[in-house]
C-alpha cells in the first residue's frame, strides 16, 4: 500500500470522495460553536446556534454542489493542485456565508465585518489547502483502509480460532460434551431396558407381553432426548449486514489497544506528523485569540512539540515494558501545550489580550489530540502493512467472544451428529423391533417375539456402540461421503496423491464439511454436477475447492448462519468463502489438516 499522502514530486492522483468532508464539517461547526458559546458570545447563545445550524446546512450544500459538478464533468480524480482548488471553492463561500450570517444575526456589527473577514481568511486558507484536501484524500482511501481492517479482523479471528481449537480448554470441552450426551443416551436407554426387563413377564400371553412392551416403547423418552439434541443443533442467531458491521467496529474497539500498541512499536507515526497536525489544529485559535506578537512568542512551542515527538519515536523504537505508557504521557503533554503556554503567559505576560477558552485548552483539545494521534497511528499505511504481515494476539474480550462462538459451533455440530445417530440407529431400530414384536404377537410366533426382544435388549445395552468410528484415510473418508450421491448427481473427485493417505481425527471433520457443502449445493442450489478438488497448501493447511452448476445459487456472502455454516466455520477456522462465476458456484475452504494438537 502506498503512502496516504505521497510526495508532491510523484504527482499523485486522488479519488474524489467527499464522505469524510461531511463528517469534518460537523466536527468543525461543533468546535467553533463551542468557542462561540462559551467564550466569544456567551450572551447570544440562541443566535450562535441558529448561525451554526444554517452554516452547516449551507456547507453541506456547497460540498454536495461541488460533488455533483465534478461528477457531471466526469472528474473522479485529481492531484494536489486540484484538491486545493476544490478546497478554495468550498472555503471561500463558507467564509462569506459565515460573515453574512454573523452580521445578520448581530454577532458582529457592520463596522467589524471587514476586520472579521480578513482575520478569518487565514483560517479559510488553512481549510482550503490542508483540512479539505486531507479529508478528501482520506475519504478516497476509506475503502482501502476498511478493507485492510477487515482482512486484519478475518486473520485475527482465524488465528484465534486455531488457538482455541488446539487449546486444552477446548479439548476438555469436547470431552465434556461428548460424555454428557453419551451419558444421557446411555441413561435413557438403560431406563428403557430396565422397564422392559422388569415389565416383561413370561408367564403372560404373548399378546399381553406385547401390549406391555409396546406401551414402554411408545412412552420411551429417547425421542424427546433426540428432539432436544436436534433443537440444540438448530439453535442459532442470524446476523444482518448491519450487525456484521457493528461486530467489526466492536471488535476493532475492543482490539484497539492491542492494535495501537503493536503498530506504534512496529511503525510509529513520524515526528513531523505530530508537529504539523498540532500546528494546523492550533492555528485557528492563534488567529482568533492572539496578537501577532503573542503568536510569534508561541512559535517556539512547535519546536518543543517536535522534540517531544522525536522522543516519542525514539522510545517506541527502543521498546521496553513502559514504552507505550511513556509515549501516551508524552502525547498528552503535546496536547496540553496550549494550556501550559496560557498558564505560563498568565504569570509572565499579565497583559495577554486573550486566551484559548479553558474548557477547550484544558480538556477537549488534549483529549482530542490524544485520540486523534492514536487513530492516525493505526490508519497509516506503514502500520496497516505491518498488521497485514504479522500475527497480532487477540484481546481478552475478543478471545472470550470467539471462544463462545467456537464452543457453540462445536456443541451444535456435536448435537447434530448425536441427533442423527439417535434417529438413524436407535429410534429406527426401536420402531422396527416394535413392528417385529407386533407381527410376532399377531401370529403368536414365540420364537420371533423372543428374537425381537433380544434385539431390543442388544440395542439398549450399549446404545453408543455404532457411534464409535475408526479414523480412515482422507481419500476413503471423502469417497465415503461422495459415493452415496452416485445416481443423483455427477461427481468428479480429485485429490493430491500426497494427501490421500493422511489419517487423523481432523479427516472426519473435513468429511462432515464436504458432505455439508454437497448437500447444500444439491438441496438449495439444485446442482446436477459437482467437482471437488483437494490440494496441499502451505503446511499444515490443505485447500478444498467445490464447484457446482447450481441453478439456484447460494447467497454470495460468508455470513450465512445455519448449522452448515457453523460446521464449515469449525472445520476451517472460518476460512471459507462462496463465489459465483457465470453458471458456476465455487466454495473454497482452507483447513489445517496436518497439525497435531
Amino acid at each position, binding site marked *: 500500500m502506498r503512502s496516504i499522502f505521497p510526495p508532491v514530486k510523484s504527482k499523485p492522483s486522488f479519488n474524489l470522495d467527499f464522505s469524510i468532508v461531511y463528517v469534518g464539517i460537523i466536527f468543525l461547526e461543533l468546535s467553533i460553536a463551542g468557542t462561540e458559546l462559551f467564550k466569544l458570545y456567551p450572551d447570544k447563545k440562541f443566535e450562535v446556534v441558529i448561525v451554526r445550524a444554517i452554516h452547516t446546512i449551507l456547507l453541506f450544500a456547497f460540498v454536495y454542489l461541488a460533488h455533483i459538478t465534478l461528477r457531471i464533468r466526469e472528474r473522479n480524480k485529481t492531484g494536489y493542485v486540484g484538491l486545493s482548488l476544490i478546497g478554495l471553492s468550498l472555503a471561500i463561500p463558507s467564509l462569506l456565508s459565515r460573515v453574512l450570517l454573523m452580521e445578520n444575526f448581530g454577532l458582529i456589527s457592520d463596522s467589524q465585518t471587514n476586520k472579521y473577514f480578513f482575520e478569518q481568511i487565514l483560517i479559510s486558507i488553512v481549510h482550503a489547502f490542508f483540512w479539505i484536501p486531507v479529508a478528501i484524500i482520506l475519504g478516497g482511501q476509506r475503502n482501502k483502509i476498511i478493507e485492510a481492517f477487515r482482512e486484519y479482523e478475518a486473520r485475527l479471528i482465524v488465528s484465534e480460532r486455531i488457538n482455541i481449537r488446539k487449546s486444552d480448554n477446548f479439548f476438555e470441552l469436547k470431552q465434556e460434551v461428548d460424555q454428557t450426551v453419551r451419558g444421557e443416551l446411555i441413561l435413557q436407554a438403560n431406563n428403557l431396558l430396565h422397564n422392559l426387563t422388569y415389565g416383561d413377564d413370561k408367564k403372560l400371553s404373548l399378546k399381553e407381553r406385547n401390549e406391555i412392551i409396546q406401551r414402554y416403547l411408545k412412552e420411551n423418552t429417547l425421542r424427546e432426548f433426540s428432539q432436544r439434541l436436534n433443537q440444540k443443533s438448530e439453535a442459532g442467531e442470524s446476523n444482518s449486514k448491519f450487525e456484521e458491521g457493528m461486530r467489526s467496529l466492536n471488535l476493532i474497539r475492543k482490539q484497539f489497544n492491542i492494535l495501537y500498541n503493536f503498530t506504534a512499536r512496529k511503525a510509529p507515526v513520524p515526528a513531523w506528523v505530530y508537529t504539523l497536525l498540532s500546528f494546523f489544529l492550533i492555528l485557528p485559535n492563534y488567529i482568533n485569540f492572539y496578537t501577532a506578537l503573542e503568536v510569534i512568542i508561541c512559535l517556539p512551542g512547535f519546536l518543543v512539540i517536535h522534540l517531544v515527538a522525536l522522543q516519542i519515536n525514539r522510545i517506541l523504537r527502543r521498546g521496553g515494558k513502559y514504552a507505550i505508557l511513556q509515549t501516551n504521557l508524552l502525547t498528552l503533554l503535546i496536547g496540553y501545550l496550549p494550556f501550559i503556554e496560557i498558564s505560563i503567559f498568565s504569570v509572565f505576560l499579565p497583559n495577554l489580550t486573550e486566551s484559548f477558552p479553558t474548557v477547550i485548552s484544558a480538556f477537549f483539545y488534549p483529549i482530542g489530540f490524544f485520540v486523534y494521534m492514536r487513530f492516525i497511528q493505526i490508519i497509516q499505511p506503514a502500520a496497516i502493512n505491518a498488521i497485514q504481515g504479522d500475527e497480532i494476539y487477540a484481546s481478552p474480550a475478543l478471545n472470550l467472544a470467539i471462544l463462545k462462538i467456537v464452543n457453540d459451533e462445536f456443541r451444535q455440530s456435536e448435537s447434530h451428529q448425536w441427533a442423527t445417530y439417535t*434417529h438413524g440407529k436407535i429410534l429406527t431400530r426401536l420402531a422396527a423391533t416394535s413392528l417385529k414384536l407386533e407381527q410376532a404377537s399377531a401370529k403368536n410366533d414365540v420364537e420371533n417375539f423372543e428374537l425381537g426382544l433380544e434385539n431390543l435388549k442388544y440395542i439398549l445395552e450399549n446404545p453408543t456402540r455404532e457411534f464409535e468410528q475408526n479414523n480412515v484415510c482422507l481419500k476413503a473418508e471423502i469417497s465415503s461421503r461422495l459415493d452415496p*450421491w452416485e*445416481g443423483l448427481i455427477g461427481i468428479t473427485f480429485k485429490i493430491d496423491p500426497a494427501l490421500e493417505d493422511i489419517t487423523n481425527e481432523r479427516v472426519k471433520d473435513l468429511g462432515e464439511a464436504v*458432505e455439508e457443502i454437497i448437500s447444500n449445493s444439491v438441496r438449495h442450489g439444485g446442482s446436477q454436477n459437482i467437482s471437488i478438488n483437494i490440494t496441499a497448501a502451505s503446511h499444515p493447511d490443505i485447500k478444498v475447492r467445490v464447484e457446482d452448476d447450481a441453478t439456484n445459487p447460494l447467497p454470495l456472502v460468508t455470513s450465512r448462519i445455519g448449522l452448515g455454516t457453523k460446521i464449515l466455520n469449525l472445520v476451517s477456522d472460518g476460512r471459507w468463502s462462496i463465489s459465483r462465476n457465470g453458471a458456476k458456484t465455487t466454495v473454497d475452504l482452507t483447513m489445517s489438516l496436518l497439525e497435531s494438537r
Partner: protein
Amino acid sequence: MSATKLKVMLVEDDDFTRSTVKSALEGQGLNIVYDTAFVKDGVEFAKKNRPDVAVLDYNLGKGPNGIDLANQLRRMQPSIGIVLLTAFLNPAELDTKIAQLPAGSRYLVKHSVSNIKVLVKEIAESAKHKA
C-alpha cells in the same frame, strides 16, 4: 388401485429395519419388488422397473437423505408415489432447510409403523398421486 396390486420399492439403510418392514409388508400381501440400502441402486432400479410406490427412509446415513432421493425419483418418474419414513415427529423440524417433499408424498413417523396397516394405508394413498 388396491395396495396389494402395487409394485413397491423399499430403500432403508439399516438392514434389520429393512428386513422387518419388508417382511411385515409382504405379510400384508404387498408386492415388494425391490429393497436396498443404497440410493444409487434404488435410482437404477426405478429407472428400469418403474415401481408404483417408493417407501424411503429419511435418514439414509452418509450422503443424500430420503427427500433427496424422493425428488430424484419424481424427476425420473413423475407419477411415482412416495412414502417417507422418519424416526422424527416431523421432518420439517428435523431439518428446516431440507428441500420440500415432492407433492403428494406421505410421511410417517416410524413408531407408528408398528401398526403395519397404517403404512399399508399410506402406501395406497401415495399411489393416488397423479403426475
